[in-house]
């Protein structure tokens, strides 16, 4: 066990830092997803041109083919530099792309992957449904095979960037009458296809980045199925092992930066003289450190064995709940200023409101605890 990085890794970190220092844009990323689109595309293109897109993606599809540790170093430095969120490119880079790498045909990969890296394609996700949130296997959106096409009907919800996306990673039921995890397929859906309607959803933090998507006899070629008809559950789950614990690095670095800032602010304002506040800040600082340690430990396990350690399932839960604790203290320290918040503001209050999603989206805290109890401790399955 050792916390020091190799000379090569340290050099790589310096390269990242230097480039980011010189290139991170001064202007803020616009909040409105439509306004943000040109910004997101330009920034992704800049990253790509400088060789920072797809650091751990295979070289043949435009990636750098570097190590997992380098990927993490990049993500850490990216967050520390306050570089903008990749926004509309998020699903393609962090989810759709990795899933294609693991599961898609050569034709699918060589068409889409370079375009994703260059921001020539925007992707969105289509997993959750109004009736299938925590219970992903309850999917009802269906695709009927007609000749060499799927005819799709149903609805998806919580889709980020639906109105600006070109493609969607869509999981639907292609086997009529199939139940739960069986009979699902993972499909590349053309978001410009006729029959698609998009209804934006505004959140209580003011953002309107999400949408509900409706499918009315939407026709998608069977060639767009990834990993085979009926293999949707396996394909959707495979992404998790590609991410291998890197998915939360940005959040974690952000948590650490926020806690450091809160400590500085509370020291400056004198709020830290209150033992209660000081105690809570101290506790959060310890927890943020432990979160990094836990992530490093998990990554080390991946490097050593190719698989995340059993604690990987803890990281998601702890990251989300710690983030909420931080945000709650942040707004308490703001005091009455929280009352001035209005939609469109981008401050600690907005973060606080946004982060109620952390224990809901991507598997609620309740589901995460079931998983930890069942998979880590071997307790009997309740569902």
């Amino acid at each position, binding site marked *: 066990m050792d916390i020091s990085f190799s000379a090569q890794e340290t050099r790589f970190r310096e390269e990242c830092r230097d480039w980011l220092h010189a290139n991170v844009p001064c202007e803020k990323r616009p909040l409105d997803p439509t306004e943000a689109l040109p910004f997101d595309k330009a920034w992704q293109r800049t990253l790509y041109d400088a060789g920072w897109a797809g650091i751990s993606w295979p070289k043949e599809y435009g990636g750098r083919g570097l190590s997992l540790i380098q990927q993490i170093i990049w993500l850490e430095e990216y967050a520390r530099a306050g570089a903008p969120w990749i926004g509309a490119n998020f699903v393609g880079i962090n989810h759709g792309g990795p899933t294609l790498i693991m599961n898609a045909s050569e034709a699918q990969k060589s068409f889409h992957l370079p375009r994703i890296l260059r921001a020539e394609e925007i992707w969105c996700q289509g997993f*959750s449904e109004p*009736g*299938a*949130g*925590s*219970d992903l296997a*309850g999917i009802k959106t269906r695709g009927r095979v007609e000749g060499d096409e799927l005819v799709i009907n149903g609805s998806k*919800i*919580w889709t980020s960037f639906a109105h600006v996306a070109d493609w969607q990673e869509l999981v639907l039921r292609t086997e009529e009458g199939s139940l739960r995890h069986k009979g699902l397929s993972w499909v590349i859906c053309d978001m410009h296809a006729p029959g698609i309607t998009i209804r934006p*959803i*505004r*959140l*209580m933090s*003011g953002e309107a980045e999400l949408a509900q998507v409706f499918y009315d006899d939407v026709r998608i070629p069977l060639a767009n199925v990834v990993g085979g008809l009926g293999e949707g559950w396996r394909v959707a789950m495979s992404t998790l092992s590609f991410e291998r614990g890197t998915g939360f690095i940005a959040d974690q670095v952000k948590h650490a930066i926020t806690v450091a800032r809160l400590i500085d602010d509370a020291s400056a304002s004198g709020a830290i003289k209150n033992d209660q506040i000081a105690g809570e800040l101290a506790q959060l600082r310890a927890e943020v450190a432990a979160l990094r340690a836990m992530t490093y430990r998990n990554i080390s396990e991946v490097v050593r064995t190719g698989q995340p350690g059993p604690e990987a399932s803890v990281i998601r839960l702890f990251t989300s709940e710690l983030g909420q604790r931080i945000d709650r203290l942040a707004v308490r320290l703001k*005091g*009455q*200023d*929280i*009352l*001035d*918040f*209005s*939609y469109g503001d981008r401050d600690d*209050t907005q973060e606080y*409101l946004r982060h*109620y*999603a952390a*224990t*809901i*989206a991507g598997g*609620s*805290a*309740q589901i995460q*605890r*079931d998983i930890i109890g069942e998979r880590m401790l071997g307790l009997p399955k*309740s*569902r």
Partner: protein
Amino acid sequence: MDLAPNTDQIAYQTATADWCRDNMPLDQARNRPAGLWKQLAEMGWTGMTSPEMGLNHATEALVFAELGRFLAPVGLLSTAVAARWVGGDAKVALAIPGDGKLRLFDAEDTTAALGIWNGKAGLTMVPGTIEPRPGLDLSASLSVIDLDLIPNPLEDPRAVHHLQLLAAAYAVGCADAARDMAASYAKIREQFERPIGWFQAIKHICADTAVRCAVARSQLYYAACALDAGDAEAAFHIAAAKRLADQAALENARANIQVHGGIGMTDDATPHLCLKRAHLLSFIAPVTTADLLKG
């Protein structure tokens, strides 16, 4: 000793809830009709706390908990306190001073605002130039003034307790609303082929909302009676009621959002209205540690 509402009090409660349900539903809290205040005045809600009405604080607490359950305008709180300690039933804005600023809520068509300055209730003039805008709590318009206006203090020290008590009642109502919303949703929303309220993880979140409501409401009743009785410990009991009610409102609002899942995060749905209201209430006549250790 009797801490259960009597027949008259139950009639007040029921009448209030019925009127609110028909005329001031919670899901319209962010979008109240322009004529609402006139309606409130006509129905007597704005003047019911004036001395000549002879309502005791216990009955007021019951009525304001019902108003709070429907997220009635916070301006009713300041108006009610002014009605009792200044007189009349004119609309009075709610003032929250602090950090060299003055925040006014529901200040449209008012000339005065009531708030707490250094532990004392006071009235201040509302400048003619304010420009109300939406704040965190979408049910209340906000006007921020960048200096702290000097208030005229109210003489009776009980005015502070009165505002604390009524704000606590609003918070109890807000906590009730979140509890009921969460339980209702848990009965109809299905995941894994069962209502989510079947799962202990959700059931226990809901149970805890009920515990917080029971605790806060009980102390609210006791505090109101202590104020009515001129009890030596009334100030402590009101502070305790306010603290527990604020906590119940905030924690129940959070629980309600979690129970609602994704829907609970949306602007269209109602859970966030309770959350934002809970935050606002916590700044109205807030309670300090010292208030709870005194007496």
